[in-house]
């Protein structure tokens, strides 16, 4: 008969070590798949698609320095589903005729911007961020100018990608 822990201190130590090791082994074995599941999004490639915004000829006809909100629809895979992400593109033409395609997400924490014509500004309804028509910050907490969409012009149409230029932390669109 083996000795009980009360009879032999070394036996006690041995059993405690075994109990500890088994607990750690089970814990680690469980933690690996759980962490894998939780961290999985970090290892997934984002589904990047092009989506048509409109004809260049139409967009070039907008008034200079008057933003136009144009919806764009991205059909993308998200997890096990395919979804349509509706997003606003703010199209702005400057005086030289150059077109800009901004996101309507405030660069502070992402609230939807309102264009206030009387003040010639985009105002954020959340914490009072303000941008001018060319997307520069003119007030409030936003840390950077508006995000610009990745775009290209093909066969007279403007195509937008579900991706921002200059977006180091990969903020979602």
């Amino acid at each position, binding site marked *: 008969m083996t000795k009980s822990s009360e009879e032999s201190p070394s036996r006690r130590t041995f059993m405690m070590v075994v109990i500890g090791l088994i607990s750690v082994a089970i814990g680690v074995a469980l933690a690996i798949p759980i962490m894998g599941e939780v961290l999985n999004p970090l290892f997934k490639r984002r589904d990047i698609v092009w989506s048509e915004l409109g004809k260049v000829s139409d967009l070039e006809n907008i008034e200079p320095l008057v933003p136009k909100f144009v919806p764009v629809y991205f059909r993308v895979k*998200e*997890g096990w589903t395919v979804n349509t992400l509706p997003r*606003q593109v703010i199209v702005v033409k400057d005086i030289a005729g150059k077109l800009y395609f901004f996101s309507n997400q405030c660069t*502070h*924490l*992402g609230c939807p911007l309102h264009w206030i014509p009387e003040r010639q500004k985009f105002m954020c309804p*959340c914490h009072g961020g303000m941008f001018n028509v060319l997307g520069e910050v003119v007030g*409030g907490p936003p840390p950077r100018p508006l995000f610009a969409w990745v775009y290209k012009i093909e066969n007279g149409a403007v195509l937008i990608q579900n991706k921002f230029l200059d977006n180091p932390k990969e*903020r979602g669109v």
Partner: protein
Amino acid sequence: MFQKIQNWFDERIELTELIKEFNGERIPRRGGWVYTFGSLLAFLFTVQVATGIFLLFYYVPYFPMARNATYYLKHHVLFGNILLGIHLWGAFAMIFFLLVHMSRVYFSGAYKKPRELQWVAGMVLFSVVVVLGLTGYMLIGNENSWWTINVLTNVASHTPVVGGFLRIIVRGGTETSVLTMQHIFAVHVWLLPIIVIMFIPMHLLFIRKTGHQGMALEYKNSKLSDDDINKWKHPDATVPFFPDQFYKDIIIALAVFGVVYILAVVYGAAIGPMYRPLALNFAPEADWYFLANEELLKYFPGHGLIVFSTFLIPTIGFVILFALPFIDRGHERSPFKRPAATVLGILFLLLLVYLTLIGGEPKAPATV
């Protein structure tokens, strides 16, 4: 007959002894009504679990459907509006009475040695319940849910070093998507409630081990010095938990439950319109208990400073609260004998109320 049943159980598991042991807990005698808030929180949490489980008979955690499933539950299910209303107002009541309970414990110095662990376990409960509130707000799938998810995950992205990854993990990808909703659902319905269910008994076990402290006025007749830890274990007079304290607890529980019920029936839970990422003039709003934090976000502009409002100030505040028993190590319990702590506490509460009130005002006019 009853005697026989009782005997049957007693012979096997000494049930009567067990119940006596549980009910006989000694509670300080003088401040009974002030000590009801803890039990009230346990009661409110039970109500949340009961209503929450049955909300799941209809709820669907899928972004394009969640709001309509909730709408159906509210408008087309018999008394669904009451069930949903109790869950909402019950949640508000919990957050409100958490602050009341914490304030009472704070001002009576009940977190001091030997009761530090009660406070720490309590802080875990506080953090988890607030996150339960926020995730619940997100699960409705209406416009505020959508923007709250976006804004709060963006807040998380300002955490130093890991922020960007954190946002992707929480959202289940770069975008707020169906996976985001699924994660929030699992967290709101499984993970956090289980943590609460584990920590309430722990909280209570610690309290039974040290005995209730109650307020300083329970120790008026004590001859021991304030620095003597034994003084704070022996109140002048006590009563048993059952029925003396329980009687008060249940009266308060009924009063609060009554108010929650009336609010549920009269005001119910607002569901609001379906989320519309294309909305041009929507002004997102946070729930009332988050407005103070929301207000903070306005004061730190620009690249370098955002981290103050999104990470540093809240984190430092939390760490200080968590570690309070280890920071404030004086032995005085009466709020009058520790004026600094008392004044700081009052100022903090006033600041909270002030930030909440101005945080609730519209920040930028939606039109004009």
